[in-house]
C-alpha cells in the first residue's frame, strides 16, 4: 500500500513538472507568435526603449528560454530576486512573478481568490453528489416506473442547460422577481456565514444541476449492472435485509466510478468555474483567469494555469489512493 502511494506521488510530481514546462513554453511562445514583447507588455506602450530594455534584463527575458525556465522554477521553490541594477526586488516562494497590469505579486492574488472558488466548488459538490447519487439509486430501484422517468428527465435537462442560462433564470426569478435571495457582493464565510450561503446558494444549485445529471446517470447504470451481479444474489441468499443488500453490498460497488469522476470534477472546479463565477459575479480564480486573458496579463495566466493543474493532479492522486482503499484488488497490481 505504501509502495503504491509512493509510486503515485512520483507520477504526480513528474506530471506537475511536465505541466509547468508546457505552460511556461506557451507563456514564452505566445508573445513571440503574436510578435509582442513581454517586456514591452510589462512596462506599457508609453515607455522608452531604455526602460523596456531595463525591464527585459530585470525579468531575465534576455536570457535563453531554459535559463528563464530554471529561474521560474527556482522562484516557485525558493523565491527569486529581480535585479535591475540599482534596486533588487525580492519575490518570496512560491513566486509566480508580478502582474503586468497591477504590478502586484501573482501568488497573493491567487490566494485571495481561492476561498471564493473553494466555497463555490465544495458547496456545489455536496449538492450534486447527494442529489445525483440519490436520484440515480432511486431511478435504478424503480426502473421503468414514474420516479425513474422523472429523475432521468431532470437529469437530461440538467446536463443540457448551460450555466449561463440556468444561472440567469435563477437570478431573475429568485433574486429579482421573488427576492428570496439577495444578490450583491460576495462576503467571506468567517465574516457573515449566512450572507455567504445566501450569495452562493443559487450558484451552487446551477453548477450542481450540471454535474448531478452525470452522477445520476452513472449511478443508475452502475447500480443496475451491480444488481445483476452474482454477489448481490449471494447477499440475498444469506438472508440479508434488502436494505443491507442495496445500501452495503451494492453501494460499495457503485461508489468506485463515482469516486473517480468526483475527484476529477472537484479538482477541475478548484481551478476555477469560469462561467459560473462570471454569471454570479463571484471573484474566484476563474474570473481572475478570464480577466487576465482579456488583459493579456501573462504571469497571472501562467500562475492560474499551474494552480489549476496542481489541483487536477492532486485530485488524480487522491482518487488513485481512494481507489486502492475501496477496491482491494487494486492494491496488488
Amino acid at each position: 500500500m505504501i509502495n503504491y502511494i509512493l509510486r503515485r506521488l512520483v507520477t504526480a510530481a513528474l506530471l506537475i513538472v511536465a505541466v509547468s514546462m508546457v505552460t511556461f513554453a506557451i507563456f514564452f511562445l505566445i508573445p513571440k507568435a503574436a510578435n509582442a514583447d513581454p517586456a514591452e507588455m510589462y512596462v506599457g506602450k508609453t515607455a522608452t526603449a531604455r526602460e523596456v530594455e531595463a525591464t527585459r534584463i530585470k525579468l531575465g527575458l534576455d536570457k535563453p528560454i531554459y535559463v528563464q525556465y530554471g529561474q521560474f522554477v527556482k522562484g516557485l521553490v525558493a523565491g527569486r530576486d529581480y535585479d535591475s541594477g540599482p534596486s533588487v526586488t525580492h519575490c518570496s516562494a512560491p513566486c509566480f512573478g508580478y502582474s503586468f497590469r497591477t504590478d502586484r505579486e501573482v501568488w497573493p492574488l491567487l490566494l485571495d481568490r481561492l476561498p471564493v472558488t473553494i466555497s463555490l466548488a465544495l458547496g456545489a459538490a455536496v449538492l450534486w453528489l447527494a442529489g445525483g447519487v440519490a436520484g440515480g439509486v432511486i431511478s435504478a430501484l424503480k426502473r421503468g416506473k414514474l420516479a425513474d422517468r422523472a429523475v432521468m428527465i431532470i437529469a437530461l435537462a440538467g446536463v443540457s442547460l448551460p450555466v449561463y442560462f440556468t444561472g440567469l433564470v435563477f437570478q431573475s426569478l429568485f433574486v429579482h422577481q421573488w427576492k428570496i435571495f439577495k444578490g450583491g457582493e460576495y462576503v467571506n464565510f468567517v465574516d457573515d456565514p449566512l450572507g455567504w450561503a445566501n450569495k452562493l446558494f443559487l450558484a451552487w444549485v446551477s453548477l450542481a444541476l450540471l454535474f448531478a445529471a452525470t452522477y445520476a446517470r452513472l449511478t443508475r447504470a452502475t447500480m443496475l449492472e451491480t444488481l445483476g451481479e452474482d454477489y448481490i444474489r449471494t447477499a440475498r441468499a444469506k438472508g440479508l435485509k434488502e436494505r443491507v443488500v442495496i445500501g452495503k453490498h451494492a453501494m460499495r460497488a457503485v461508489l468506485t466510478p463515482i469516486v473517480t469522476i468526483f475527484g476529477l470534477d472537484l479538482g477541475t472546479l478548484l481551478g476555477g468555474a469560469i462561467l459560473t463565477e462570471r454569471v454570479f459575479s463571484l471573484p474566484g480564480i476563474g474570473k481572475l483567469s478570464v480577466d487576465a486573458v482579456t488583459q493579456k496579463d501573462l504571469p497571472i495566466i501562467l500562475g492560474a494555469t499551474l494552480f489549476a493543474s496542481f489541483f487536477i493532479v492532486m485530485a488524480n492522486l487522491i482518487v488513485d489512493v481512494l481507489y486502492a482503499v475501496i477496491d482491494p484488488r487494486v492494491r496488488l497490481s
Partner: protein
Amino acid sequence: MSSSLLTDVNPSRGGSGSQPAESFLDVRDLRIHFNTDDGVVKAVDGLTFQLERGQTLGIVGESGSGKSVTSLGILGLHRRGSAKISGEVWLDGEELIGASPERVRLLRGAKMSMIFQDPLTAMHPYYTIGAQIIEAYRVHHKVSKAEARKRAIEMLDRVGIPQPQRRVDDYPHQFSGGMRQRAMIAMSLVNNPQLLIADEPTTALDVTVQAQILDLIRDLQSEFNSAVIIITHDLGVVAEVADDILVMYGGKCVEQTTAEAIFRRPEHPYAWGLLSSMPRVDREVRERLVPIKGNPPSLINLPSGCSFHPRCPYTQRNGIPCKTVEPTLAEGTPEHGVACHIPPADRTAIFKSDIAPNL
C-alpha cells in the same frame, strides 16, 4: 422413491389450506414463469419432487432446462415482480411460496442455504472472506463480531483451508479457485442449514479439487443429516453423490428415479442421450462421443406434445402421439417416473439393444 424409508424427525407443523407435507422438502407442481417482451418464459413448468433429511437429490439437465431457476425459486430469490410463481414448496412442514417475503428471508441462509456456481463472482470482491462469513452468521445469530469471527475461522478450518486464522482476512481474489469454493461452502454452512442446495458446485474446478469438494459436501451432510440438492449437467458428479435423480428438460421433469436406476436402466431417450455423450474412462475408448442432436428448446415456444420430440431419434414409432400429446411421468412407474410415450417394454428393449452396448 428410495428416500421414503426416512420419516420426518419433527412431525409436520402444518401450514395453510393444503395438506401439510410428509417429506422434509416437498415441492408440488412448482411453476416459475417470466413475462418478457417476447412472451412468457416457462422456465419451470409443473415440477414435483420430495426429499428427506440425509438424502441427496441430483437435478440434471442441459443449460436452460430450469435447474437453477428451480433452486432460486425454493429459496425465494426470484423478484416477485418479474417472476410468476405458483405451486407449493413445503420445507419441514412450512409452505414457502405463499409465505411472507420476510419469513422466507429469515429461513434463507439459516435453515436453507445455497452454494453457488462460480465463487469468484458469487463472493463480494470488496470484502474479506472472513467479513462475508461473519456477516452470514450474524444475520441469523445475535452474537458479537469476535464470536462470529471465531465461528468463521472454525468453519474455514472445517472445510480444509490451511491457516484459517490468517486466511480469514484475505480477499476472494487472493484465494485459488478450489479454496474459494471451500470458502463459499463454509459461508453456506455457517448456520448449519438443514437444506443445502449446491448449484454446479464443482463446474469451475479441476477434477481433483472436484472430488475433494464433493467429499466435503458429503461429509458435512452426514454430520448434520441435511438434505442436499445437487444441480449439475455433469452425470459423473451425480453418480458420485446422489441418492435420487431428477432429469429436467425444457422446464419439466422427464425422468425421476434412483441414481442406480438412471445409470443401469435409464428409460427416457433424453437420459440415453445424456449418458451417451458422457466420456467413460473405465471402458475402451470409442471413436466418438454421441452428442444429442439439435439445441435445447426455447422456453417461450416449447415444441408441441413431448417437448423432446424434435431431437428424439425414436419419435413417432408405431404411431405414438409424440407431436400432439404431452407425456407425463405416469408413463413409468411410481418408483421410476418416465415422461415418454414409448411403451415400457420397448424402452427397455431399445436401451438394451441400441444404447447400452455403446456406453
